[in-house]
């Protein structure tokens, strides 16, 4: 691994300023899990790493907002989110998704900010959080902005974040009466990176769906809403015939990309099947 300089600022704003000044030669580090892999492979050779480990404690906290949304600091570890009583109670689908995300040691270290900023389409939480309607607050050297999480990812390992911009926190509406599920298909070890992920968030009365949000990941460059499949679900009673059409619509509206977890054709097949299963699982969830 090539040597680099490690900076450890005490505030997020200071980190943003350092990163802005250093430009392309510098990278922020959250948990450092993804960074370490890239450093070891030599695909990343920074002169400077700016560790976020010492920034203000409030960026590691999980709390309920005045307006009933859950605020999760970007430096909160995936394990802290998984084990948070608030998360389990208010957004159970998030805790469930986390249980099958890699292993305990990775979750102990990986941060939510790093997880989102890495922009690997195989990440498990973006589809869930996007389907729930989460947004991210971004801090830069000159100020801050809030954007829907759905707008963060620009392509494979690419975000819309400008130089020096850092994810500060994620705000996510609680599940409330919405029913939600995240299904992940792995083709090697059980808790491997997904070959496909599908998140379904439904508003339903009995078996009749009022509105649906479906998001697919791991089969496309960025997490992608399945709007046509969603439209088919609106205002109707769910049965197998309808779900068959929903699965077909989903498989037709995106162009899957193959990788080492499965070919494009296989992923299209998976999408058809997993969208149907995810809707069923969401209906059966609370």
């Amino acid at each position, binding site marked *: 691994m090539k*040597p*680099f*300089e490690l900076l450890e600022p005490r505030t997020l704003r200071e980190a943003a300023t350092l990163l802005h000044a250093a430009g392309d030669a510098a990278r922020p580090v959250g948990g450092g899990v993804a960074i*370490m892999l890239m450093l*070891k492979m030599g695909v990343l050779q920074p002169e400077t790493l700016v*560790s976020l480990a010492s920034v203000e404690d409030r960026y590691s906290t999980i709390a309920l907002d005045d307006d009933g949304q859950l605020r999760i600091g970007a430096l909160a570890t995936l394990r802290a989110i998984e084990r948070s009583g608030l998360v389990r109670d208010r957004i159970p689908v998030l805790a469930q998704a986390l249980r099958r995300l890699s292993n*305990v040691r990775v979750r102990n*270290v990986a941060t939510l900010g790093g997880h989102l900023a890495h922009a690997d389409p195989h990440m498990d939480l973006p589809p869930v959080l996007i389907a729930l309607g989460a947004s991210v607050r971004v801090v830069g050297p000159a100020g801050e902005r809030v954007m829907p999480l759905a707008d963060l990812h620009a392509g494979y390992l690419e975000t819309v974040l400008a130089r020096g911009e850092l994810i500060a926190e994620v705000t996510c509406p609680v599940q409330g009466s919405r029913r939600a599920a995240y299904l992940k298909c792995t083709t090697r*070890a059980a808790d491997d990176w997904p070959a496909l992920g599908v998140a379904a968030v439904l508003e339903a009365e009995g078996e009749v769906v009022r509105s649906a949000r479906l998001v697919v990941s791991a089969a496309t460059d960025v997490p992608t809403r399945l709007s046509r499949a969603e439209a088919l679900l609106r205002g109707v009673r769910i049965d197998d015939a309808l779900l068959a059409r929903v699965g077909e619509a989903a498989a037709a509206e995106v162009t899957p990309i193959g990788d080492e977890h499965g070919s494009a054709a296989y992923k299209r097949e998976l999408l058809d099947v997993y969208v149907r299963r995810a809707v069923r699982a969401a209906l059966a969830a609370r």
Partner: protein
Amino acid sequence: MGTTRTLRFTLNGEPVTTEAPSHWNVVELLQNRFNLYGARESCGQGLCGCCTVLVDGVAVSGCLSLAARVDGADVRTIEAPAATEDGLDDVQQAFIESGAFQCGYCTPGFVLMTRKLLDECPQPDDEDIRHYLSGNLCRCAAYPEIVAAVRLVAQRRATRG
């Protein structure tokens, strides 16, 4: 300046201070500065658990942790002796009795993860055990014996009260 780092931390109960290059990971730090080889790098990718170290009581993959992570922390490795006559705790004892290893390369990681599992979930069922230890790989495939060893510890602790 920032290309080396002074690290002050507690290592297996002893306060230590050292200098290390910023780009070293925790395994390199323990091996090169403290001659501790219990945490060893195998996959180097966070998958196998051979490099497991407890930092402030949290299990991490040493292979993916920058050395700076340990600054100011309480670090425990498999070398930390237990307060028993032979220095082995009940988890290690159960691994020996259950034959939960062949070559032993993976064992430090499994033992440390088992201690954490039993802290968090004192009476795990087989599914809990497999889930918690899914990030630890044993190339000798002693998995059934490892699960049996974890159950044995849990059982003994329950009967001891």
